[in-house]
C-alpha cells in the first residue's frame, strides 16, 4: 500500500506542472495586451510600457514562467487588478463557504445515493426500485437553479425554516447543498444500482448464501464493498460537476464563496483572480482524484498488493 500511495503521489507532480503551464499561459491567451488592460483606457504609451516592465511582461516567456512559479511557491498569487488586494487573501476569505458547501453536498449525495441504489438493486422491479429510480431521474432532470429557487420559495419564504441566502449559520447551507447535491446523488443512485446488480450476480454472492449468511450480511459485507470500487470512481469524476455547480448555487443563494468570486471576476475582467481560481479548481480536482486512487487501493486488495 505504501508503495502504491507513493506512486500515485509522484504521478501528481507532472500533472501539476502541466496545469501550472496552462494557467500561466492563460494571461497571454487573452485577446489584447494585458499591460494595456491594466493601465486603463486613458494611459499613455509610456505608462503602458512602465506597467509592462513592472509586471515583467517584457521578459522572455520562460523567465516569466519561472518568476511566476517562484512567486506561486511562496504563496504569492499576485494582486487583484480590480481591488489591488493580494489574490491569496481574497481566495482564503472565500474558501471556507465553498468547501463547506461542496463537502456537505458530496457527503449527503454519497450516503443517500448509495442507499437508494442499493435498496433499488436488492428490490429490483419492486416498488422501492421504482420509487428510487423515479427520484433519481427527477434529480438528474431538474435544473439546479430552478430547484434552488423552488426550495427558497417553499422552505424559506413560505415556511421560514431556512434563510434565503448568506452564510450566517449551518442552516444557511442546508438548501444550497440539497440543490448542489441533487444531480450527483441521482447519478450515484443510478450507478450504484447497476453496479450492485452486477455484483449480486457474482459467484461469491452465491457462496455467501450457501454458507447460510443472512441476506443483509451478503449484501452489506460481500456485495457493497465490491460495488463501491466502481462507485468511488464515478463520485470522483462527479466532483468536477460540483465545482461548476457551486458557481450557480452560490449565485442563487448569495453565498460569498469561490464560485461567486469567479463570476464577479469574470464580469470585471480581473484576470489575476481568474487565473488563481483556475489553478485552485484544477488542483482541487487533481487532489480529489488522488484521494479516489488511494481509496481504490484501500477497497481493492488486488491493486494494493500488485504494486508491492
Amino acid at each position, binding site marked *: 500500500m505504501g508503495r502504491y500511495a507513493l506512486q500515485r503521489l509522484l504521478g501528481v507532480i507532472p500533472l501539476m506542472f502541466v496545469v501550472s503551464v496552462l494557467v500561466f499561459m492563460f494571461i497571454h491567451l487573452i485577446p489584447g495586451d494585458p499591460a494595456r488592460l491594466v493601465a486603463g483606457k486613458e494611459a499613455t504609451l509610456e505608462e503602458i510600457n512602465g506597467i509592462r516592465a513592472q509586471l515583467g511582461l517584457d521578459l522572455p516567456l520562460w523567465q516569466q514562467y519561472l518568476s511566476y512559479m517562484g512567486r506561486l511557491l511562496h504563496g504569492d498569487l499576485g494582486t487583484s487588478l480590480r481591488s489591488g488586494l493580494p489574490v491569496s487573501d481574497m481566495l482564503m476569505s472565500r474558501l471556507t463557504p465553498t468547501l463547506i458547501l461542496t463537502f456537505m453536498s458530496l457527503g449527503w449525495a454519497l450516503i443517500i445515493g448509495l442507499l437508494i441504489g442499493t435498496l433499488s438493486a436488492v428490490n429490483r422491479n419492486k416498488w422501492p426500485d421504482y420509487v428510487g429510480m423515479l427520484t433519481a431521474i427527477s434529480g438528474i432532470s431538474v435544473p439546479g437553479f430552478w430547484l434552488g429557487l423552488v426550495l427558497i420559495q417553499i422552505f424559506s419564504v413560505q415556511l421560514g425554516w431556512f434563510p434565503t441566502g448568506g452564510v450566517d449559520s449551518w442552516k444557511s447551507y442546508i438548501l444550497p447543498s440539497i440543490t448542489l447535491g441533487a444531480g450527483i446523488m441521482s447519478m450515484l443512485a443510478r450507478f450504484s444500482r447497476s453496479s450492485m446488480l452486477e455484483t449480486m450476480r457474482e459467484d461469491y454472492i*452465491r457462496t455467501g448464501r450457501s454458507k447460510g449468511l443472512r441476506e443483509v450480511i451478503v449484501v452489506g459485507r460481500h456485495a457493497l464493498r465490491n460495488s463501491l470500487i466502481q462507485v468511488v470512481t464515478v463520485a470522483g469524476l462527479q466532483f468536477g460537476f460540483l465545482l461548476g455547480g457551486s458557481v450557480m448555487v452560490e449565485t442563487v443563494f448569495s453565498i460569498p464563496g469561490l464560485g461567486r468570486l469567479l463570476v464577479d471576476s469574470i464580469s470585471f475582467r480581473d484576470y489575476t483572480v481568474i487565473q488563481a481560481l483556475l489553478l485552485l479548481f484544477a488542483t482541487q480536482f487533481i487532489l480529489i482524484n488522488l484521494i479516489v486512487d488511494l481509496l481504490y487501493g484501500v477497497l481493492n486488495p488486488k491493486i494494493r498488493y500488485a504494486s508491492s
Partner: protein
Amino acid sequence: MASRLLEVEDLTTEFRRDGGSVKAVSGINFHINKGEVLGLVGESGCGKSVTSLSIMRLLKDTPGRIAGGAVRFEGTDLTRIQEKEMRKFRGNELAMIFQEPMTSLNPVLRIGRQLEEPIMLHLGYSRKRAREHAIHMLKQVGIPRAEDVVDEYPHQLSGGMRQRVMIAMAMSCGPKLLIADEPTTALDVTIQAQILDLMKRLKEEQDMGMLLITHDLGVVAEMCDRVVVMYAGRVVEEASVKDLFENPQHPYTRGLIQSVPKLRQKVRRLASIQGNVPDLSAMPPGCKFAPRCAHVMQQCLEREPELLPVAGQTERTSRCWLTQTDKAEGGEDDGRYTAG
C-alpha cells in the same frame, strides 16, 4: 435398507422465460444414503446444477423457482420450511462447493474472514476460536503455510488452492451432506486428481454423504457408489457405479460411456452422441432422447416411457421402452406401463 440422508421426490423446478415458464427439472426422484456418494451425470443444460441449487434453495436471483415435489433431508422437507430455518441448514449440515474456484471467493475479503463466517454463525465460536478452527481446516485440506494464508486474499492463491479453501469452508461445520457441483472441471488434470483424493479422504474421515455433480465419467468411476443419469431435466437411468459401466441400459448412458476416449483403441473419429439437448421450451412429445437415439421406435416418438425398474435387477431403473418390455418392439405391453 441403509438409512436415507436425502430424498428427492418429484422435484420440479421451473424457469420463467418469455412470459411463460419452462421446466428445467421435471419431477426427478433420487435418494442418498448416509455416507454414500451419489453421482449426478449428464450433458450441460440437463438440469444438474439446477437440481443442486434447488436442494440448497439458492435459486434467488435466477428466474427459477421450485414448482413442486419435496426435498427431504433427514426427514425434513426443505421445500416447505421458512427461509430462516433453511439458513440454519446451509453451510452447516448441508454444504456446497462450486465449479468456479476463481470467482467463488470474495476478492476483497481475507481468506480467514471468509472461512470464519460459517464457523461463527453455525458453531457459535468467538472470532479468535473461529480463526483457529479456520487454520485447522486449511491444514486439513492440505494448504501449506495455513497460518499465513488466512491473512491473504483470494487473488494470491492458485485455482487449486482456492478450491481447497472452498472445500475447507464447506467442511468447516462438519456437514452431513456435501453437494459438489463440478468441483474439478475448472482445474488442471493433475490438480483434479489431488482435489478428488482430498474429497475422498475427507468423506471417509467424516462419514459424510455426497452429491457429486459432473459430466466427467472418469470422476464418477473414481468417486461414486451410485449414479443417476439426467437428460433434459429427467432422470433416465439409475444404477450402482459398477452396473452402470458394465451394463448401461439407457441408450443415452451408453452414448455417454462410448464418447469417453479410450487409450488403447485407435479410432479415426471419437464417438459422440449425434444432435443436441432439446430446447426446454420445445420438447419432443415422446421420449426426450428419441430425436438423438439410434434405437428409436414409433412409440418412443408418441409416448414418454416412465422411470421403471430394469427387469431382473434390483436398485436399477431406466426410462426406456427397450428396457421395460420383453420384446424390444414393444407396443403390446401398454397395460403394464399404465399400471406401473
